[in-house]
């Protein structure tokens, strides 16, 4: 039951659509890389590699998962989806959370941005009984990260 709820949440994440008018990202886009998960069960931090997001290179990002008190959450199951909401396509690769590097810190490998513009990075999170989601926005301007 829990598993099916988790998968359903992940599927909803994958199929989420946006309403935007044209090519430039919405002005009020939340670009924070640390915020509570959608239902507030976790505090989630998305950490780009030291170079920042770079066009046309496969990168490893890190996801820090903590509970509301800041304690690391280990052994979580994390699914990734994402893409370019304004272009109707996903990532050129299929990034995956491959391992827990240290308690509460997970490696997201295979991240590649093929175009400048607005990308969303969406996570389905499951830790024990708790399931939640987290969404981050990243904007690349000609290969440079806007924050």
């Amino acid at each position, binding site marked *: 039951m829990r598993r099916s709820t988790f998968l359903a949440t992940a599927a909803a994440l994958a199929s989420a659509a946006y309403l*935007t008018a044209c090519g430039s990202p919405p002005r009020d886009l939340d670009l924070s890389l640390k915020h509570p998960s959608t239902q507030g069960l976790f505090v989630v931090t998305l950490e780009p590699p030291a170079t920042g997001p770079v066009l046309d290179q496969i990168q490893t990002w890190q996801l820090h998962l903590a509970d509301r008190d800041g304690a690391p959450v280990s052994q979580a199951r994390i699914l990734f989806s994402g893409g370019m909401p*304004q272009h*109707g*396509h996903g990532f*050129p690769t*299929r990034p995956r959370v491959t391992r827990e590097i240290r308690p509460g810190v997970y490696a997201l490998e295979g991240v590649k941005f093929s*175009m400048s513009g607005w990308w969303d990075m969406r996570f389905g999170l499951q830790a024990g009984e708790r399931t939640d989601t987290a969404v981050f926005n990243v904007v690349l301007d000609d290969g440079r990260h806007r924050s």
Partner: protein
Amino acid sequence: MKHALLAAALALLLLTAFQPAARSWTPAERATLAALHIGRLDAPPADPSNAVADRPAAAALGRQLFFDARLSANDRVSCASCHAPERGFQDGRPLGEGLATGSRRTMPVPAASHASWFFWDGRKDSLWSQALGPLEDAAEHGANRVQLVRLLAEAYRPEYEALFGPLPPLAGLPAAAGPLGTPAERAAWARLPEAQQQAVDRAFANLGKAIAAYERTLMPGESRFDRYVAAVVGDRPADEAALSPAEVRGLRLFIGKAQCVSCHAGPLLTDQHFHNTGVPPRDPRRPDPGRSPAVARVLADPFNCLGRFSDAPPQHCEELRYIADDDPHLQAAFKTPGLRNVAERAPYMHAGQFATLEQVIAHYVSAPGAALGHSELARAGQRHAERAPIALGAAEAADLAAFLRSLSGPVCERGRPC
């Protein structure tokens, strides 16, 4: 008073008319233009799966092989037959013509080394593995790998062995055999011991690696567009005349409301990714599925980055390991072609569906629904969740086509005059 107003209006008009181009672009637009300049193009990215990728001796051998028509079933088809140097390494035909007519448009070779995936559907993951495909395709070279290894031994042994070590012994090999050939060639291949098959496969792979080393030397040169951008970005007026007013208007559309730069980005004017833009299939009864079935093909390909003939350790095969294998947008999606020299290579699209640039632009404006899968384009009058329709009037479409004609330039071979 009336005269003063008129004079002021005239002065304003004159100022606008003679304003240097550099000042007519916003800082953000200038950054966009700078990212498209040919000077932003680096050397081809390293190919760890090909140990000889940047060896001059491999490029020299590859150059000979590229132009050698003995690499075919009838001694009349070379790589250059379709990738003709005098045509920018393509053939100007809607469909490739080798021993028979193929099903897709010949792609140009210059700067192909910058891609992660090859062919319109990306069914190969390296330039060397790509080079092997047409050699054994019945509609292209129609050769078989035993025949090709025999040719290497007879015509290229010293050059080959200096790069790759000994060729496999030919004793016991039939004249013709290969796993993809005629029934007789396949039967002869099946009779070979596995070790002998692998030795042939390795030499066959090395042949592809030499051809790839040559292809990596081919790059597009400077176009009028680049001269204009250099002037704009460098705040120099000298080369602003490199583009006509109509071409400049077209460029403004290209990076603006025509949305071209969304996918035709970077100095090669491609994102190297796959998109379904609803291009009508050549045969409506059999729409081409494009990228989606190619994913399984490249994963199963014995000549991929993770295969035994690759020189790369598995951790360097990230594109293959993280291949997008579950993305519904890839159905009937095709690789974004680069636009350098686009005016020199009609007809357009993956099966030469459109004869002119004007027809291509008209397609993006009309944005028909896809015969297979879903088009990423939004159609005028239709609500589309993700993006705006590409709305261009006739004069704007003409300006955009004029701009695309400014992207022509030479093809340069490294180490030779360009």
